[in-house]
C-alpha cells in the first residue's frame, strides 16, 4: 500500500462516469435492473453506486469521536465494548399478579431491565370498574387501580437493583407517584431509582391516542414530572420523547426524526420557560425510536437523529454540558411490519431490525415477538425475542466494534439526507407556529396519514413485497397457541378494587383529593399532592377525575 491513499474526488467522478457509460451500459443491455428507480421508504433516491465522491462530510466536524459532540458515532466513548445495551422487553397483561410472574420469568431468563405495559383504562385514567373500561381491563397491559396493585406488580423485585421503564403518559404523574411509594416501602431512597417514564403527551395527540386533558394542562403535567424528577430522582429519565408510535402510525424515517425532535424542542422550551437552566434538566431527557425494515436507512436514521439533536441543543439552546446534547434512546422493532401470515418469519424480520438498532447505537432494545400480529406474546415467543438480542449481543461479534457503519459511503450519505430532510420539516413546523399549532391544524397527523396510505398502496401494487402476504403466499392453519386474557381477570380486578375502597380511610382520601384539586388550580408542582393521594389509596380513576374537573377533557377534531 502506498502512502498517498486519498483519491481526488473529481478523478473518482470522472471514472464513475466512464464506468456508467461502458461497463454498466453493456451489462444493462443484457441484465436490466429490477426497478427503473430505487428509493428508500423516506423517498430518498438511491444511487446506483456510492463512492467517496457521492458523500460530503468532514470527519472531525460531522462525525467526531464516540462520547463527544456531535455524538454521531454514539453517546458512550466505548459503546458496547463496555456494556451491551439494556435488553428491555415491554410486557404486561392481566392483573398485577400475572405480570409480576412474567417479570420474574424474564429476569431469570437474563433480561436486564423491566418495561411496563399498562392496560388502556390505566393509561386513560379510568378505574377497572368504569363503564369505559369494559372489555379492556388487562387486555393490552397490566391493570393498575391503586397503590396495592403497584405493590403486587413489583413484589420481590428490588427497585434499587432493576431499572424500570414505564409507558405511561396522561396518567404519568399518578403512576410515577405509585412507583415512588413502592420504593419508599422497600426502603429505597428516590435518589437511587433508575428508570424512565414516557411522559410524552405531544405524540399522543399526534399518533398514539391516550390523551385525557387539553394540551396546555397536559404540558404542565409533563413539566411537573420533569422538574420533580430533577430535584428528587436525579438518575431517572423523566421523559422518553417517542418517535416509535409516530412511525407505527405510518410516518417515514425522516418524518419520525423530524416530528420527534420537534416535540423535543417543544418540551425543552416549556422547561426553560419555567426559569430552569437547560443544563439542569436536559441530561435526563431520553428518546425512543422505531427500527423498521429499510436496514441502511434505519442505521442512518439513528445517527442522524443523534447529530441533529446535539446541534439543536448546542446551537439553539446554548447547552454547555455534553450530557445535555446527548441523544440517548431506546428502540423497539417495528410492530407494524409483523405479519399474521407465516408468523415465524417475524423472527427474521425482528432480527434484522434489532441489528439495525444495534448498529445505530441504541442504549436499550425491545425485540417484538413473532405472534404479535395475532395477540400478546406467549411466554415461548417472548423468550425467542429476548434470545434474538442475546445472539446479536454475544454471538455475532458486532458489539465489539464502535459505530461500525461509519465511513460507509451509503450510510454516511443517508445520514446526511435524513438530517437534511428532518431539518426542513422542523423549520416548516416552526414557521407554522410550532408543534402545538401544527397538531391543532392537523398538519402532522395528515403528513403521517398520507405516508401510511402510500405505504399500503405500495404493498397492494407490489412495489413493496411482504413475504407471505403479497408474495410467497401459502395456505396455512392459524397458530394454536396464543395468549388470551379472559374476562375473569376483569372481574377479579374489579373485586380487588372494591375491597381496597372498602377497607381504606375514605375521609382521608377525600381530604387528599381536595388538596390535589386546589393545587391543580394553581401553577405549583402537582407531584407532592399526587404522591399523598396515592399513599392514601386514592384510585387512579379518582385522581384523574379530580384533574378532569379542573383541566377539562380534550376533544379530538
Amino acid at each position, binding site marked *: 500500500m502506498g502512502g498517498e491513499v486519498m483519491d481526488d474526488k473529481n478523478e473518482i467522478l470522472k471514472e464513475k462516469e466512464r464506468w456508467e457509460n461502458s461497463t454498466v451500459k453493456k451489462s444493462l443491455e443484457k441484465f436490466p435492473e429490477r426497478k427503473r428507480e430505487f428509493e428508500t421508504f423516506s423517498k430518498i433516491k438511491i444511487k446506483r453506486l456510492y463512492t467517496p465522491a457521492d458523500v460530503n462530510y468532514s470527519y472531525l466536524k460531522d462525525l467526531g469521536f464516540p462520547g463527544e459532540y456531535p455524538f454521531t458515532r454514539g453517546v458512550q466513548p466505548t459503546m458496547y465494548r463496555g456494556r451491551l445495551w439494556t435488553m428491555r422487553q415491554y410486557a404486561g397483561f392481566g392483573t398485577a399478579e400475572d405480570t409480576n410472574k412474567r417479570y420474574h420469568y424474564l429476569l431469570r431468563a437474563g433480561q436486564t431491565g423491566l418495561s411496563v405495559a399498562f392496560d388502556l383504562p390505566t393509561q386513560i385514567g*379510568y378505574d377497572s370498574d368504569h363503564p*369505559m373500561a369494559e372489555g379492556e381491563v388487562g387486555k393490552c397491559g397490566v391493570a393498575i387501580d391503586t397503590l396495592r396493585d403497584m405493590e403486587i406488580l413489583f413484589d420481590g423485585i428490588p427497585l434499587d437493583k432493576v431499572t424500570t421503564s414505564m409507558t405511561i403518559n396522561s396518567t404519568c404523574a399518578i403512576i410515577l407517584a405509585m412507583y415512588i411509594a413502592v420504593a419508599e416501602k422497600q426502603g429505597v431512597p428516590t435518589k437511587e431509582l433508575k428508570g424512565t417514564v414516557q411522559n410524552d403527551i405531544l405524540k399522543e395527540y399526534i399518533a398514539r*391516542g391516550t390523551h385525557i386533558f387539553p394540551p396546555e394542562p397536559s404540558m404542565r403535567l409533563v413539566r411537573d414530572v420533569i422538574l420533580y424528577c430533577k430535584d428528587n430522582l436525579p438518575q431517572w429519565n423523566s421523559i422518553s420523547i417517542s418517535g416509535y408510535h409516530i412511525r407505527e402510525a405510518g410516518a417515514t424515517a425522516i418524518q419520525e426524526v423530524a416530528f420527534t425532535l420537534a416535540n423535543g424542542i417543544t418540551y425543552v422550551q416549556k422547561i426553560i420557560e419555567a426559569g430552569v437552566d437547560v443544563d439542569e434538566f436536559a441530561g435526563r431527557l431520553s428518546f425512543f425510536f422505531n427500527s423498521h425494515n429499510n436496514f441502511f436507512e434505519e442505521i442512518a436514521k439513528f445517527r442522524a437523529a443523534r447529530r441533529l439533536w446535539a446541534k439543536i441543543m448546542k446551537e439553539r439552546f446554548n447547552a454547555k454540558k455534553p450530557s445535555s446534547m446527548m441523544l440517548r434512546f431506546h428502540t423497539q422493532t417495528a410492530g407494524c411490519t409483523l405479519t399474521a401470515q407465516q408468523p415465524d418469519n417475524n423472527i427474521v424480520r425482528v432480527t434484522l431490525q434489532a441489528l439495525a438498532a444495534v448498529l445505530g447505537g441504541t442504549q436499550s432494545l425491545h425485540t417484538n415477538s413473532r405472534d404479535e400480529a395475532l395477540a400478546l406474546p406467549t411466554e415461548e415467543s417472548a423468550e425467542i425475542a429476548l434470545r434474538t438480542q442475546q445472539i446479536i449481543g454475544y454471538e455475532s461479534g458486532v458489539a465489539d466494534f464502535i459505530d461500525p457503519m461509519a465511513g460507509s459511503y451509503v450510510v454516511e450519505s443517508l445520514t446526511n439526507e435524513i438530517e437534511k430532510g428532518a431539518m426542513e420539516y422542523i423549520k416548516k413546523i416552526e414557521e407554522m407556529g410550532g408543534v402545538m399549532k401544527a397538531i391543532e391544524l392537523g398538519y402532522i397527523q395528515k403528513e403521517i*396519514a398520507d405516508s401510511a396510505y402510500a405505504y399500503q398502496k405500495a404493498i397492494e401494487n407490489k412495489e413493496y413485497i411482504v413475504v407471505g402476504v403479497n408474495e410467497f403466499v401459502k395456505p396455512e392453519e392459524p397458530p394454536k397457541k396464543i395468549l*388470551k386474557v379472559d*374476562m375473569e381477570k376483569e372481574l377479579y380486578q374489579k373485586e380487588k378494587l372494591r375491597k381496597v375502597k372498602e377497607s381504606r380511610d375514605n375521609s382521608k382520601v377525600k381530604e387528599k383529593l381536595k388538596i390535589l384539586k386546589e393545587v391543580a388550580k394553581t401553577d405549583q408542582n402537582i407531584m407532592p399532592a399526587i404522591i399523598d393521594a396515592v399513599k392514601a389509596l386514592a384510585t387512579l380513576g379518582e385522581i384523574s377525575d379530580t384533574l378532569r374537573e379542573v383541566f377539562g377533557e380534550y376533544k379530538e377534531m
Partner: protein
Amino acid sequence: MKKVRILIAKPGLDGHDRGAKVVARALRDAGFEVIYTGIRQTPEQIVNTAIQEDVDFIGLSCLSGAHNTLFPKVVELLKEKGADDIIVFGGGVIPAEDVEFLKSKGIKAIFGPGTTTEETIKFIKENIKGE
C-alpha cells in the same frame, strides 16, 4: 340511486387508527361516502351516529383485544333500535378463534392484518343491497 354510505368507527380505548384511516380513505377513493368517527367511541355513540348518518355499513376497528365485548354490543344495539339492516364488519388484531365467535354474533366479516383494501372494497360491493 343513493350513494352507499359507510361508517368507519373505533370502539374502545385504543388509539391505533392507522388501519381505520387507511380503510376509510381507500373506500372513499373507491367512490363510497365514508364517515370516520375518530377514536374512543362507545357502542352507543357508534350506533347513534350510524342511524343519524343513515349508513349502509359499519366498519369497526379494534386493536386492544376488546373486540369480543365491543363488536357484538354494536350489533345488539342496532337490533334494539331496529337498524339491523346495517351490515357490520370489523378488523384489527383478532385471533382466528374469535373470528368464528364474532361471526356467530352477527358481524358479517372480519379483516385481519395483511388484508388489502381491494378485499374490503370487494366485500362492500358484494353486499350492497338491491334497490
